């Protein structure tokens, strides 16, 4: 067993989750593959969305995977960083919008 919670080499083993639950594993990977195909959104656009979400959910595996995916698609580092900011902006916005709840509660409790 590795002595750390995250091991970069584990990303290569992702497909192995199917071994312990074949049906669910296969369903997941089929779905996953389908989601990232060209559709109403281009595969390129979806790759950038995935990169932004990877940062928001703070998954190091996904960050590695979608940085590489972006490079493969010829996506520039400027585009990648903007996507990360889009994710970060929503994430911080989501925190800050709760400030309204704080204000409401404050006002309700105050005379």
């Amino acid at each position: 067993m590795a002595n750390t919670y995250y091991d970069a080499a584990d990303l290569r083993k992702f497909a192995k989750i199917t071994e312990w639950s074949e049906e669910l594993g296969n369903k997941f990977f089929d779905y996953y593959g389908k989601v990232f195909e060209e559709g109403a959104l281009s595969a390129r656009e979806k790759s950038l969305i995935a990169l932004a979400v990877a940062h928001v959910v703070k998954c190091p595996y996904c960050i590695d995977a979608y940085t590489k995916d972006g490079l493969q698609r010829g996506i520039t580092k400027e585009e990648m960083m903007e996507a990360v900011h889009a994710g970060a902006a929503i994430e911080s916005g989501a925190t800050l919008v709760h400030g309204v709840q704080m204000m409401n509660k404050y006002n309700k409790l105050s005379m």
Partner: protein
Amino acid sequence: MATKSLKARQKDLAKTNKQLEILNGGIFAEGELPYFKDKLTNIGHFPLRPRKLEILQINVGYMCNQVCEHCHVDAGPDRKEIMTRETMKQCLEVIRNTEAHTLDLTGGAPEMNPNFKWFVEEAAKAGIQDFIVRSNLTIIRANKQYYDLPEFFKKHNVHVVSSMPHYTRGKTDKQRGDGVFDKSIKALQELNAVGYGLPGQNLRLDLVYNPSGAYLPGDQVALEKDFKKALDEDFGIQFHNLFAITNLPISRFLDYLIASENYEDYMYALVEAYNSEAVENVMCTNTISVSWDGWLYDCDFNQMLGLKVASKIKHIKDYNEDILNDRNIIISQHCYGCTAGAGSSCQGTVI
């Protein structure tokens, strides 16, 4: 960025046996990843055999004005291996009689061979259907003596295939050196100006894209679309097709992979992307590669690994197409680079 070849820097990896040791050892010897041979055996393609010869690829020398970090030739200004007129004459003999429909001149920078123009003039007379010169573009702007290359190519109806790592300056210069992007753009504009690469025109200009790093090329069609749009909008440049080529783990690219600790991940990525359908059309099944000193190889990559054809005909002076075509192709783990995804060859994807 290095300014000298691995050979001039006397790096261990300049030696072909060292490279083969790495390709045959480590994760493959330990059984973590399957040998390429096993993959071929699974689909009944071992030993790998040629089909009909279609492409004669001649490497006229390893000298180059650039020292790209990913170069599988380990080319550079310091390389002295240059094809002589004598060997060129032997090649011409073959070009006049071959069944191949394509002649493909490569290097290094082929234009740096002092007999390059003479050779092109002579070879063009053989009337081969598709006459390719692989030009790195910057050579056209490197020195006054090369300024007339676009006109020269046009005169001999040469099909120009040029490398262009990216349509942005940053990425191009990182892979190929400072100033490469601006020079390449200028060279492309000059090729366009004499009629190369224009829609519906016969003067063919194709671009080669290979990734600037330890990742595989994305979808060729999507990349071509992005390149066309960006080069046209930003610089008014036109070209015909984009070939997306996978970097094979040999020579300087192998050195880079190891130094950047990307080697294992890259091999995993190649093996994972293995596509059995690509095997049928890998380049060595329709190509013979000739080195600057006249030896024959299954492909340019095997040439750089020093793996001569497994045939009793090993040199251009003894060339015999029938005997040569009856051979087993020599493979190793670098071959995974030709079968990843949609496959990769000097003409881009293979399926």
